[in-house]
């Protein structure tokens, strides 16, 4: 079982799919979509088989690990391996890709760019997403981190909405600036590792074990953190996200916000905290402040939006604030909550974006004022949208609630007042989600809406149903995911030398003062 190179296979499979799709005739639109769907389903199946072989008891270790020398001159290995967090994020990515392809079956018709190109780009992106979560060599991680930009850039710039050029360029410039700062820090880390161990390395485990001088750590931390903060995005690095999400096709938006942005928070948790523990503790007040500002600001701006997709994008800005908050409060509950939130947010945002996409393509407008009374003509559409929305506002029983609650509890343990302020974000979430629902779904139904906004088709229901099932299932029973995540969180907590504050009511054991 362990001898089979699961992760490289998983990485190569979508690439093969992309090549196959590109070899199809240009006019074979449906065939390209079918082949793309088959490959993405295959990747999903392989992931499930792999995940069944994952040993949750040792989820803190990198499993299915493989390391092949790639560029010995730089000390770079093609090294992959997954811990619990990486595994669930890969699972998130590979389950969203087939959903996106199926839900967005008619999003691309060849009028803007070729259909096979779109499918191939999605598959290339899938490979890069798997690679970025699976890499245990930081150089390799950086290569995937940067090369993800190219497919996304083309997906937005070629297949997006009216202001796609602007959005694609803004996305690319923001991401590149972050990526290049990370490159500088990466090189610095490499040089530091060469000074400490004698040979430069990019191996994550080795680097995490180094004792880097705290002053140097701060600089290196800054390089990595800014890159991740742009990717995630945290306020004030967030302005590219609404544009990019609003201008891209719903499918691209799902992958962008649902998965790609997770690379930012995943990077904070895995790389910032474990590689630069001193600097991370040093930066905690700043990051927590930014995160809380993000939670409140994102939510307030979301309330003011008139464009559905921009609204959803801003809700994500708010939610990423929660995730970053949970990562940096340095409690195991907060971090578990954040890791779980990454998964839950992926599914609920996917559902929101896709259903919003159905609405928008039917009505031909992204503005909420052009809708109204949809629930009378399309009750199933309205119902699914409501469930997705309620999950986004963290209604108990739906998945986001568990993670948001964990983050807030984890925050409260150490920073009670921060938790109080952050909780306001939930109230505001109820405002923006319910306002959106009210404006779109309730009220009088105009003739245009009656005529154009039809009920969900069978294909669309098939695409959305799994998302809603996951949202409900993880809302009631998040244990399987938490079981896989928690050992890895324990490792992170240990690396960053953080201990959970002892409960105040319980007697404190001697000598374990926090």
């Amino acid at each position: 079982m362990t001898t089979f190179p699961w992760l490289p296979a998983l990485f190569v499979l979508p690439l093969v799919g992309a090549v196959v799709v590109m070899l199809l005739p240009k006019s074979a639109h449906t065939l390209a979509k079918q082949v793309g769907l088959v490959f993405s389903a295959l990747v999903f199946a392989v992931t499930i088989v792999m995940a069944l072989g994952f040993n949750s008891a040792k989820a803190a270790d990198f499993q299915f690990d493989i390391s092949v020398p790639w560029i010995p001159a730089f000390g770079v290995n093609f090294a992959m391996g997954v811990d619990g967090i990486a595994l669930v994020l890969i699972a998130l990515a590979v389950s969203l890709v087939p959903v996106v392809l199926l839900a967005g079956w008619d999003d691309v018709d060849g009028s803007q760019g070729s259909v096979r190109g779109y499918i191939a780009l999605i598959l290339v992106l899938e490979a890069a997403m798997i690679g970025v979560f699976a890499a245990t060599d930081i150089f390799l991680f950086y290569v995937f981190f940067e090369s993800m930009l190219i497919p996304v850039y083309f997906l937005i710039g070629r297949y997006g909405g009216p202001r796609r050029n602007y959005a694609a360029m803004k996305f690319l410039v923001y991401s590149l600036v972050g990526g290049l700062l990370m490159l500088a820090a990466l090189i610095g880390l490499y040089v530091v590792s060469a000074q400490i161990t004698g040979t430069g390395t990019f191996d994550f485990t080795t680097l995490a074990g180094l004792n880097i001088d705290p002053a140097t750590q701060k600089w290196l931390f800054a390089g990595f953190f800014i890159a991740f903060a742009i990717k995630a995005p945290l306020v004030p690095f967030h302005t590219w996200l609404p544009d990019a999400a609003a201008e891209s096709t719903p499918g691209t938006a799902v992958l962008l916000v649902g998965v790609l942005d997770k690379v930012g928070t995943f990077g904070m948790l895995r790389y910032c905290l474990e590689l630069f523990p001193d600097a991370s503790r040093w930066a905690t007040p700043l990051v927590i402040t930014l995160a809380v500002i993000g939670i409140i600001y994102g939510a307030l701006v979301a309330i003011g939006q008139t464009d559905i997709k921009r609204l959803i994008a801003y809700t994500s800005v708010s939610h990423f604030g929660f995730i970053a908050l949970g990562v940096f409060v340095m409690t195991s509950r907060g971090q578990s909550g954040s890791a779980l939130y990454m998964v839950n947010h992926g599914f609920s945002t996917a559902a929101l974006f896709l259903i919003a996409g159905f609405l928008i393509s039917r009505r031909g407008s992204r503005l909420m004022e052009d809708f109204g009374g949809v629930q009378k003509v399309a009750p199933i559409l309205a119902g699914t949208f409501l469930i997705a929305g309620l999950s986004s506002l963290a209604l108990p029983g739906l998945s986001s609630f568990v993670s948001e609650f964990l983050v807030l509890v984890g925050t409260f343990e150490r920073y009670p007042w921060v938790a109080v302020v952050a909780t306001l974000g939930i109230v505001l979430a109820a405002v923006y989600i319910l306002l959106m629902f009210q404006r779109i779904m309730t009220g009088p139904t105009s003739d245009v809406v009656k005529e154009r906004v039809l009920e969900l088709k069978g294909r669309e229901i098939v695409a959305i149903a799994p998302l809603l099932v996951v949202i409900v299932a993880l809302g009631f029973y998040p244990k399987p995911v938490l079981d896989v995540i928690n050992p890895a969180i324990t490792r992170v907590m240990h690396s960053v030398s953080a201990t959970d504050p002892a409960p105040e009511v319980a007697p404190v054991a001697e000598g374990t003062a926090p």
Partner: protein
Amino acid sequence: MSATASFDIPAIDYSAIGPILIVTGAALVGVLVEAFVPQLYRRSVQLVVTFGALLAAFAALISIRGMREIVAVGAVAIDGPTIFLQGSILVLAFIAALVIAEREVDPVGDAFAPRASALPGSVDEQAFTGLGWLQTEVWPLFLFSVGGMLLFPASTDLLTMFVALEVLSLPLYIMVGLARRRRLLSQEAALKYFVLGAFSSAFFLYGTALMYGFAGTVSLSGIADKLTATAGANSLVITGTALLAVGLLFKIGAVPFHQWTPDVYQGAPTPVTGFMAACTKVAAFGALLRVMYVALGGVRWDWRPIMYVIAALSMLVGVVFALTQTDIKRMLAYSSIAQAGFMLIGVVATSRQGLDATLVYLFAYGTATIGAFAVVSLVRDSTGEATHLSQWAGLGRKSPVLASVFALFLLGFAGIPLTSGFTAKFAVFSAGVAAGATPLVIVGVLASAIGAFFYVRVIVLMFFTEPAADSGVSVVIPSAFTTLAITITAALSLVIGVLPQFILDLANNAGIFIR
């Protein structure tokens, strides 16, 4: 000194300087061909001579690849860096020659004026064009220039270096003025290049004289020994270093000696632009590295701060001015100024790692540059090359393969992972950080970000913008020559990006400069 003393009689190991001799010898043959072979056959004969000479020189270079000696009475050092640089120059010159040999893309002939002496727009010119004559003198000029480039980074004394500088420059001045289209622009560029080039050569010569005044010798190792003996710099050394650096930095096109670059790159026939942008830079960087590492290593604390500033300025000025360009050739010119700045990080590092990194960067940059200019030469309208950026709109629709290849080169210049540019940038940046030049690397990173903006803007134009309805711009299908050149350069860009170990090993095995 000790190495030269062992030569009592001027015995010369001809095999050691075989590559140089073969190329310059072939250039002389080319001159004779011009004199004696009938017009009809000249082109074919010149092509055989040129490509034959480049291949033979490369074979000769392979045969001496293990050599680490000072030869030719102490005038030429055949060491690892020399072999790597000469190999790079020969490979790049070979690819550039393929582009120069192209004659299918222009319906009237190749890229060169049939008779450069005919006045632009004159009856004579039309007559020569009507006859379908081709300019074949470009070939011997090309070979002379390559010969000079091979000698330039191998010279161990400043006078040999000066001779090499002139041998490589003079033919280039002429080649720049040979464009078939837009001849006035081309001739203006040639004159500019010549006047400024001669000026900078004079700086170099003056620097040589001052160095001779200080050390009593022009040999690089002699200067180094004298510096060690006197333990430090005096005004002669400082002034001499500055003047030598001006001459070399001019050829490299580093700020503030870059003013000629955009005009000359724009005016020169595009195949020549590719050639000079790639090969001259390799040769000049080789020479700069040798002078700075071998002769002036002892006073590096004096020149490093200045080089710091020049590197930073080159990167920033290059990318910022490139942002505002509307002509693709001028944009690539400013981009090459920025690239020179990145390479200077390797020079500033003054370490073994910095040397290796610069060597790799030079080769990676050279291949992508020749490829990029080869692509530029294929995008044409009825008046010649369509170099205005607006004319490139929608190219991705008309010719997806070519546009993708050009995008690959641009992404390489921008330093996106999995392209050769990334490997090269990573190498110089890590050398820079290891040598304590972290602030410079930060500047480099920021410049890369700005640079990415305009490289990507061209990609946007090609892929996301609708072509103007009546632009008349088309992508010409070239002959096998250019196709081969573009294929090789694109393949190298990818290979150096994805599997760079072989070139890193080559550079690493090159070792250090011998004295």
